């Protein structure tokens, strides 16, 4: 079996005694953190990785059974943490990885001393007395669309990109792999993500937690973020002056500032 480091395409950079782990959400890979993570390399050991099935992870390690729950992904985070000997580290998780971080924290107490949840949602589908932002029908429509629009998505996920003269910092080899993934895996990951319900796990989180919430996020609305905040005892929420679901890309400065203030 390949090592965890290779399996999850783990990269460790920076100089610091404390580690800061960045986890990407549904859609792309660790490149999602390219405007944020480097800012912490001076003071922290920055750990970046790809979930199995995303980016440059080992696709052969994809086990449909294991990754049919977020718990399977959390096990990988714990494995990476164990491999690197992490104690009292900071976990920064975007989107679905926010909840994966919550689960990892519960699985391995002491590994993460602080959580930063960017655009978290404990459940995407509305429920009695709970607003998730999506109806069951809408999520069913999404999953059907993934089935249906196979070509569109796979084409979108594997864009043919030449180089990028405007942005020399984006190497050609990286641009090719940003959001590329196996369409079958993307479908499965979407299913796991959008049908997950981890509301009951939030109250168990005992570490200080920062929730970063965008103002207009259709994937994880402010109400959803507020719910997470209300359930995690030692949490605080910061509403970012950013729109969309990816403030790490659209408002990296605000994200960096909020994390710096928290740690």
């Amino acid at each position, binding site marked *: 079996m390949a090592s965890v480091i290779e399996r999850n395409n783990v990269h460790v950079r920076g100089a610091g005694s404390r580690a800061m782990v960045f986890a990407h959400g549904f859609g792309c890979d660790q490149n999602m953190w390219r405007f944020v993570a480097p800012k912490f390399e001076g003071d922290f050991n920055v750990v970046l990785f790809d979930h199995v099935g995303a980016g440059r992870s080992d696709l052969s390690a994809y086990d449909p059974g294991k990754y049919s729950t977020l718990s399977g992904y959390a096990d990988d985070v714990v494995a990476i943490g164990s491999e690197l000997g992490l104690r009292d580290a900071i976990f920064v998780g975007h989107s679905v990885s926010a909840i994966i971080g919550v689960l990892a924290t519960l699985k391995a107490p002491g590994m993460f001393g602080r959580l930063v949840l960017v655009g978290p949602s404990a459940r995407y589908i509305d429920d009695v007395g709970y607003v998730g932002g999506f109806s069951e029908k809408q999520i069913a429509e999404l999953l059907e669309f993934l089935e249906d629009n196979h070509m569109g998505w796979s084409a979108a996920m594997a864009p043919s990109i030449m180089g990028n003269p405007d942005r020399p910092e984006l190497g050609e080899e990286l641009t090719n792999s*940003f959001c590329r993934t196996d369409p079958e895996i993307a479908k499965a990951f979407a299913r796991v993500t959008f049908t997950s319900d981890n509301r009951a796990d939030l109250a168990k989180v005992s570490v200080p937690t920062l929730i970063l919430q965008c103002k207009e996020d259709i994937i994880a609305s402010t109400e959803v973020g507020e719910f997470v905040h209300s359930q995690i005892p030692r949490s605080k929420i910061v509403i970012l002056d950013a729109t969309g679901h990816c403030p790490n890309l659209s408002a990296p400065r605000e994200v960096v500032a909020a994390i710096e203030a928290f740690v």
Partner: protein
Amino acid sequence: MSGSEELEDLFENAPCGYLTLAPDGRISRVNQTLCDWTGYPREHFAGKRMHQFLNMAGRIYFETHIAPLLRMQGFFNEFALDFVTESGDRMPVIANAAERRSPDGELLSTRLVLLRAADRRRYERELVDARAIATRTLASERETAELREQFIAVLGHDLRNPLAAINAGARILQRSGRLQDDKELRVLDMINTTVTRMSGLIDNVLDFARGRLGGGITLSREASRPLEPVLEQIVDELRTASPKRSIESSFAILDPVNCDRARIGQLVSNLIGNALTHGAAYQPVRVGARTEGGVFELWVSNAGVPIPESAMEKLFEPFFRGDVRDSRQGLGLGLHIASQIAQAHGGKITVTSSSEETRFVFTMPTMDR
């Protein structure tokens, strides 16, 4: 039209939709074409965000893939979206997007070009459906093929064994010399004939089935051993099996022939069997073979009613049977298998038929080139 009017008109009425997003993701400008396509007036777009014009799946796709990729690489080409029009219909589009940035990298705006893609989407849908069907069919075919292979292996084994027992029994009777009565001897002849025919039929059926399974005719060629004795033996067997018929043979195989001897034996057996079945009963079947100028040639001829023109081109097709005249009719696989053996050797079988003679000629290069 002045130059700037021309440009303005090109923007507004281009055969594609244009849409510009401000740095905060809100729509700042659309062209007339997009208004016409979607049925929304221009003011309806102003200040709204892209996802408000997309279906739910498109929204999630836009937020989780397109928007991040645009930020990361500054452009994103050929992505599929469904626009929801004013009437509530879906308008499939293919879009390209690019960011416009200031020299210091600040995002100034994002431009999108949208092309209608209903036909393309339908075509893609059909491809996906076709692939799904093909995958399912393939799986079920594989299952069937496996069953068939097992069936054939069992069939071959189970049919050959009792036949071998009958054959051995007939031989013991023949050698014992106890059968003297004409009628008894005729029965013995009949048994021999039937065993030979049956054995040939089983070989042909198994070869045909294997060929259909993709295995084809496999050869184990050997040029060093003589072919003539094999042919003589086949002719002898057929003579024994059809004692009332005359089979005349003349072989002159002077050069080595790089062939599978057992297969060539099967080929000649099939051709002679065919001649015995369809040829005039009281005229001899003639068999000959020779090598000349690097070519091995083998022929089988018979007299009788010529093969009708209409049957000529179907002769070598599996299960083709001529006019059924007697119970000797086989499965219609003999000539098919013979032609398969010929092809496997890089050779061919040709046929000529007239009121004087029907002749099958097999030719192949003596050496594999």
